[in-house]
């Protein structure tokens, strides 16, 4: 089996994640969409780790680091969101425009 289907799947997921991150109004879903983008990247890395020019474990290790970082990022993101909700009473991304111009 070649690598192309994996890469294509990753590209589809990446684009959907990007679309979600930039179009959804709920802040949690925006964060979640970013996780989808990171997952697409992990798929890429693991596929390359098996079918790439030099099969090895580097890709898998890279993706492990990604997963960890993503978890930390989500934790901080949710924390900020909770605090924001406490102050503004909304999780609507489109409401966050007190600073402009």
């Amino acid at each position, binding site marked *: 089996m070649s690598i192309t289907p994996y890469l294509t799947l990753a590209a589809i997921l990446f684009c959907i994640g990007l679309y979600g991150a930039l179009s959804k109004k709920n802040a949690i879903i925006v964060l979640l969409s970013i996780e989808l983008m990171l997952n697409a990247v992990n798929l890429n890395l693991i596929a390359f780790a098996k079918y790439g020019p030099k099969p090895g474990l580097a890709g898998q290790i*890279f993706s492990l680091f990604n997963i960890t970082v993503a978890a930390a990022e989500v934790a901080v993101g949710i924390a900020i969101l909770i605090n924001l909700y406490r102050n503004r009473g909304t999780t609507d991304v489109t409401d966050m425009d007190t600073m402009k111009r």
Partner: protein
Amino acid sequence: MEALRLQLSDLQHLIPELTLIVTALLAALLDLALPRKVSRSFSAWLTLLGIVVAICFTALELNPEEPIQLLAQSYRIDDFASLLKLVILVGTGLVVFMSLGSAARDDIHHVGEYYYLFLPAALGGMIMASSGDLITLYVGLELLSITSYVLVAMKKKSTESNEGAFKYIVLGGISSAIILYGMSFLYGISGSTNLLAINSALAGSIDDVKGLVYLAFFLLLAGFGFKIAAAPFHTWAPDVYQGAPTPVTAFLAVVSKGAGFAILFRVMYWVFGSLTLMGTDLQKDALLSLSVLAAISMIAGNAMALRQHNVKRLLAYSGIANAGYLLVPIATHFSLVHYANYSEFLFYLIAYLFMNIGAFAVLMIVQRSSGNEELRGFAGLYYRARGRPQRPCCSSFRWPASRSRRDFSESCSSSWARCRRNSIGSAR
């Protein structure tokens, strides 16, 4: 496999980083252990102490006989890295110093954390400056970024601070994903995460995967462009700068941006621009893209700054324009004769560090007395505070002044000359 083990003796090269980690842990533990009544300013002094010690250790590493490399080039301690570490540490130190006393007024509730969180942020920047491996690079970048998200959100009662932090984390997350996507393609092309290995793989055979190489380049360009706030990837900067506590804004404008440049420099130079790729289409296109980015940043940043009334946003736009200037030495063609463009870059970065921190320090003082961040708060400053207005003047005039200083102007003009030669060459 055995050769790639970190020896105990290698740890001596990591002492500056270890110092920061130890200080941060110490500060965190003390913060937990001491009762709430104790003033948290000890945290600031401890942080400063750690930074000063780290500066000393870093200075000792300057000018090694030959660059030290650990774990198959994945961690390099060369002069570029050491100098950038010094810039980062000095910048962080100044920011901590600046926030002494202002932290309580800025309704930051967790003053202890606020201070010692600067340490891991600086550590992330230092890792970025030294790393020669995509994984190390990315981890350092994320350490800096995530710490910055937290620092921006430190004014917990302020809606603007929260909102800025959330915008920062959303856009930062997207840009991280974009960078990672680009890195994954680099890994896919070369089968390695080491920058030098990637470079030699690119030099070997890129025709089969030319598209992937370009794709990776542009994804990385966008991601790093976001981190350094270069137009058109700059949009987050004004809001985040405005929302963050002023010292944190200074940190973002100086340290974070400097570290972003470090990583950009490492990747662009080692992967896409090194001698092995000299004269190839790929290198020409890479440098051209950087030049275009530099030009857009300079124009857009300065043009938008013209119509801005909030000083922090104004400084954000100025930071965008300065990102363009800083991109120039990276974007220029280099040759055997002039291999190290980073001297110009570092020179400008150092000047930029001091003048920006100076500007933010004055902004803090004015902010305190006028109660807002609008430009009109500065009106009549000459009469209100004799002696003080020289400082913003000095720091803002350092822009042109540093450019006109002899060696810098020479290097700048040579950069320009090379830039033009480069563009003529690619036109041919």
